[in-house]
């Protein structure tokens, strides 16, 4: 179903979802999803609530393994050709390479510094100097450094919502992952904070491969190179963002992007 655009022919995709069927217990939520995501692209996943886009996102770093009943029924997800659900895959290693930012900004109730270096600490890095360097690097990358450099040891919950979410992004990129998954990163933020996050994603594009779930179609238009539209657990259409929004091939896509599908 995925349209073969010239770029995806030229370059092997980084993330490949192949005929994925995914279920919670007996309740199947993804049906035969085939989707390729190119390295260094920003891919947006859109669709009505309950269409399975978040499940797909959470399957890519296997964070959905925490849900007792979640399981891959058939099909596979590969990153660089490696099947993520192969028995020899260490989820800890996988997650260090596939960062994730959640919908509700949720820094730990610890200091800003401790939040920024959490991933490095659990990875066993103890050297104070290395940690400080990494904290500065990732906070700068997340465009937060100037705002927090004088109060790194204050609690993270004292920051504003937008700052907290940027801290969550800093925390994720401190591990220098290849892929960054974002589950509605702006859903809990006001418009001003949303713009800053979008600018940030714009600055970071090219360094990471982004997969972003969003309910905001304008946002998808602004930041995504490619957009995939899901409905009722099926991938309906995937294309370059402008093509998908301006000349959708599927009538279902058209009714959704024009706001007629409820």
């Amino acid at each position: 179903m995925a349209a073969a655009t010239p770029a995806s022919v030229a370059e092997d995709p980084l993330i490949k979802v192949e005929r994925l069927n995914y279920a919670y217990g007996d309740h199947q939520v993804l049906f035969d999803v085939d989707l390729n995501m190119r390295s260094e692209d920003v891919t947006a996943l859109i669709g009505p609530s309950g269409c399975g886009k978040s499940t797909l996102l959470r399957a890519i770093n296997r964070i959905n393994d925490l849900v007792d009943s979640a399981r891959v029924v058939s099909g596979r997800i590969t990153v660089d050709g490696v099947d993520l659900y192969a028995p020899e895959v260490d989820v800890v290693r996988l997650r260090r390479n596939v960062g994730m930012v959640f919908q509700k900004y949720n820094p730990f109730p610890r200091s800003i510094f401790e939040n920024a270096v959490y991933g490095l600490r659990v990875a066993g890095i103890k050297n104070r100097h290395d940690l400080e360097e990494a904290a500065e690097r990732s906070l700068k990358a997340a465009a937060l450094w100037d705002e927090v450099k004088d109060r790194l040891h204050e609690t993270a919950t004292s920051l504003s919502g937008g700052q907290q979410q940027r801290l969550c992004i800093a925390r994720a990129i401190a591990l220098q992952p290849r892929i960054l998954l974002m589950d509605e990163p702006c859903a809990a933020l006001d418009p001003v904070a949303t713009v800053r996050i979008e600018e940030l994603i714009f600055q970071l594009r090219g360094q990471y491969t982004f997969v972003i779930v969003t309910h905001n179609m304008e946002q998808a238009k602004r930041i995504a190179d490619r957009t995939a539209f899901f409905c009722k657990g099926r991938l309906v259409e995937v294309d370059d963002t402008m093509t998908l929004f301006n000349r959708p091939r599927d009538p279902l896509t058209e009714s959704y992007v024009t706001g007629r599908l409820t």
Partner: protein
Amino acid sequence: MKPASSTENPFAGDQSGIHRREAAARRVLRTGSYLVVLITAAILLHIFVKGAPVVFQPEWPFVNTKFLTELPATLHVIEDKQGHHIETDVSGADVIKKQLGGNFASEKTISHSGGGILGPIVGTALLVIVSVSVALILGVSCAIYLSEYAKKGKFLETVRLAILNLAGVPSVVFGLFGLGAFVLTAPKFVDVPAERSVLAIPLGFTTLSFEGWDTCVLSGGFTLAFVILPVIITASEQCLQAVPQGFRETSMALGATRWQTIRYSVLPFATPGILTSSILGISRAAGETAPIMFTAALAFKDKLPWQKDLLPLPADASIFAHWEQSVSRFLGIFTESVQALPYHIYTLAAKIPQNEYAERAQYGSVFVFLVLVASLAAVSVWLRIHLRKKYQW
């Protein structure tokens, strides 16, 4: 539609049945609530009025230090010819009798009612320390496993049911269990197994003998631990569940293992609640009588647990020998039987003839007991507020 008249309010109430029933229901429920408050106040007031005069005194230092710092003793009351009652202890009685030269009307002895209640206070403190330590280690481990590792299903249901049942077991059953399990059969290291040993496993340098720990702090503490275990497990699990799921997901998404996630991002935020509930567990453990009757408590003991006759060391004993003796004296505390407050109160109220002196000792003990438990509850409230402020999300 009726035209709205200016005199008739369309929303005016009437005296129909539903209004009367509403008023009656409110009155009944309110009376019930007031009764509960009233009963609580009556209990506290009763204990305070009768107990406070025993513990406090009008002149400096305003606290009856004797009552709080001495061991229970037999009270001797000598009535002289003028009708004065002189209260004293055994040795004091002899002195006074000599002074009076046999010239007195009567002498009464009331057991356990003289001296103070330091023995029971210390005993209860030791029992609480052992039981809460054991219950926290076991209970928190169990709660972490149930909350963080176990998958929903048959097994989890079974464990939950078992915990609920454990909470429903009458405390005297725990007492009997403790007698059988800890006093009579628990394993310990000995050089020569006792005759009653159930099973002795020689280990070369020593023998692991299942001969029980006797009635002692350890046996009682372990028994009490099982009494409060369901409280601790249930409360700890609730506290763990109250930590946002997002912390776990975020932590794992940052490449933490499950144990790292628990260690750094779940337990620290659940600890305030766990501590609070464990303090309520302390109150429960301190108050139980039945579980310690057969396992740890004595009605009377004239020594504190660390006042044990050890062989005096020779003058040239090495520092190591001194150190060894201190350690054995410390460990010996836990293998001694003790007096405990609830059991002491039971003894005073049920095992000795009742009179004003016994009653005074009873209310004094109950008052001290109540103050101790209330201060523990206060500490728990303070801890909760204080720690909650530290970790906000």
